[in-house]
């Protein structure tokens, strides 16, 4: 029998049945709305009574739209009755084991200190969680969000970056694998239809909204570019500006911070680069000589925000002293002239002066066993309340620090999307596996 499973390259996956608190959401409510792999007792965050009523109402509305034929697909899809025929071995086989996490996994995050909310995207359950900015504490129990956007109308899949617009009270989230950018009201809850959608390149990850200048920056991994749109752009529109090309040295960009006041845009790079080739059938399959792929050290690259096209960075933070390793989300604290980096590879927050360049050490680092920072994926600044928020992908928490925190600091509050001690599987959007018969282990790439 399989002894254990291993997720490459990050975490050990464990069997997930049986040891957790069980909520009372019934399968009949949840199953139509999410790809569920759970047993009848769904282990989801329990909704409030109001949420349940809204949820039921939105489910009824969705069903009604379906019946009205809102979307037409190719006829003949799906297996015909009786397929695949008699004599076929197997069939409707239940699993003997399931590795899955029924709880949310924090991915992107944005903080609005003025309106007192924090928004997290959840790549595991394909949802958004909206918390009060003062949420959390030292409890070991799950922190109740005051809103959760979840359901078939929300168009959320493998979601990544989040941005908030405090003036319009809107939040934006991008899908990273299939789908585009969706915009919701701060008051969205349950199966809420987006206010509007924007087509962005495939594998878009980071978002940064410059409210004062009405512009939105989007980084896209495979596209190796930064696209800058108008903050109200919708549908299929060309970006106002695009920073992309060989000179940019963008290499698998993730976090982004747009600061039009200083005419700068920052992008965190993982260092992976290869050519972007069109999948379109009308493009030549073998265009001749190509530039091979490469691995580069992680970096933060800075460009003039007003630039457009294939432009070199004006500054680059890169090198051993920087400690950069898989930099994920970034945030700018313009009042302190600081750039904060969720440094996944070292489970820490690196804080650089915004003018940093070259192989520069961070001005301060928040990291250590007391911080509770475990695989940080997003960082945000609440300038009004002088706090730094950190969302962890590596466990089921977000942690809040004083804005000037440094070293192995204890967080002021912990926000939990699962009871304390709940493990994560370490993977989302897994698409393959391999069996190791030597160790009797199953390997799952993240």
């Amino acid at each position: 029998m399989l002894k254990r499973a291993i997720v490459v390259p990050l975490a050990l996956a464990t069997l997930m049945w049986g040891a957790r608190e069980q909520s009372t959401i019934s399968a009949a409510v949840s199953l139509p709305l999410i790809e569920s792999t759970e047993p009848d007792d769904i282990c989801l965050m329990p909704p409030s009574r109001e949420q349940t009523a809204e949820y039921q109402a939105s489910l009824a509305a969705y069903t009604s739209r379906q019946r009205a034929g809102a979307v037409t697909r190719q006829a003949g899809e799906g297996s015909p009755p009786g397929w695949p025929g008699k004599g076929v071995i197997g069939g409707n086989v239940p699993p003997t084991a399931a590795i899955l996490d029924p709880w949310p996994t924090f991915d992107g995050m944005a903080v609005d200190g003025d309106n007192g909310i924090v928004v997290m995207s959840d790549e595991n359950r394909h949802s958004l969680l909206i918390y009060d900015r003062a949420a959390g504490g030292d409890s070991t129990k799950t922190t109740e969000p005051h809103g959760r956007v979840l359901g078939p109308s929300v168009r959320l899949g493998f979601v990544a970056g989040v941005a908030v617009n405090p003036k319009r009270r809107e939040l934006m989230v991008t899908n990273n694998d299939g789908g585009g950018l969706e915009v919701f009201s701060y008051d969205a809850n349950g199966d809420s239809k987006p206010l509007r959608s924007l087509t962005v390149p495939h594998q878009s990850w980071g978002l940064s909204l410059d409210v004062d200048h009405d512009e939105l920056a989007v980084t896209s991994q495979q596209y190796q570019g930064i696209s800058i749109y108008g903050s109200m752009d919708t549908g299929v529109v060309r970006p106002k500006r695009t920073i992309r090309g060989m000179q940019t040295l963008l290499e698998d960009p993730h976090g982004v911070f747009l600061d039009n006041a200083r005419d700068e845009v920052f992008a965190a790079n993982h260092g992976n680069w290869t050519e972007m080739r069109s999948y379109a059938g009308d493009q030549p399959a073998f265009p001749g000589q190509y530039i091979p792929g490469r691995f580069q050290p992680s970096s933060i690259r800075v460009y003039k925000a007003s630039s457009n096209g294939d432009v070199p960075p004006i500054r680059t933070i890169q090198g051993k002293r920087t400690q950069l390793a898989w930099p994920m989300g970034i945030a700018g604290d313009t009042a302190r002239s600081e750039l904060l980096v969720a440094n996944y590879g070292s489970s820490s927050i690196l804080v650089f002066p915004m003018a940093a360049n070259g192989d520069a050490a961070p001005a301060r680092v928040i990291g250590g066993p007391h911080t509770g920072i475990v695989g940080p994926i997003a960082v945000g600044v609440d300038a009004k309340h002088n706090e730094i928020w950190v969302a962890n992908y590596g466990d089921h928490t977000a942690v809040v620090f004083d804005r000037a925190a440094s070293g192995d600091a204890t967080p002021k509050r912990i926000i939990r999307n699962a009871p304390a001690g709940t493990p994560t599987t370490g993977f989302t959007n897994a698409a393959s596996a391999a069996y190791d018969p030597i160790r009797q282990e199953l390997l799952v790439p993240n």
Partner: protein
Amino acid sequence: MHGLAFDAVHDELIVPVALSGAVLVFKGDARGDTLPIRIIQGSQTGLIRPQTVEVDPVNGEIVAADSSSRAILVFDRLANGDVAPKRKIGGLKTDFRDIVGVAVDPIHNVIIAANRSAGGPNGVYMFDRMANGDVAPIRHIGGMNTGVLGRFRQLKLDAERGMIYVAVQAFRHQMATPQKEADLYTNEKALAELRAQETRGDRADRDDDPVDAEGAGDTAGFIGAWSVTDDGDVPPRMIIRGPATRAGGFAGVAVNPKNGEVYGVGTNAVMTYLVPNFFLKKP
């Protein structure tokens, strides 16, 4: 990463890195932040975006499927650095588009590819293991009766029994996704299609959107198994599908014949199915 292979003979782990045009080889027990023992990358390799790999420990080869090259590249198992492939299967006769799964059968001497496209070639394609250049497949499992219509990914082979396992995400065609196809904002044809979809209210940018067509059948995905000798529009000989499987579809698959297990990777879960009857005998 969309692929992974384990070499049980040499205790090595082979990883394709699509975003860097590389294939990495690690020790089988590698853990944490550890260096690969070999890296295949560079202008001679032909690697652009390798989606998936497989290893042939019998013949000492690594096989990489590259969607951007639209080719299968065969390297020596010990290849390291900027090295040319020993063989390359690619060209118009192959019908390759987006190759999302690959397997090698050293017993029956075939290379097997899961090849898909929206509105174009789809299915499981088999080539002679020593094929090189622009060659047609020797067998092709595809068509409405197979269920392998466009929404599928990984392949795994049970070489001893000559059975090909295919992870199918949904029993339906792959929608054209101009967002992916476009070199976005420069491919005018793809942009026009995206705008047309928007006008129709028919967003196809998520090809896992629910199917609402009247008369549509059950679009649930499955794990299906075919023989390496199968050809044409034939249903699977073995299948894992249905609500009890707790999965709406599968993107990855692995097999453990010794313990009679099949593993299915779907969205954010990994399921273990105990199916010893799958491994009793050759078909």
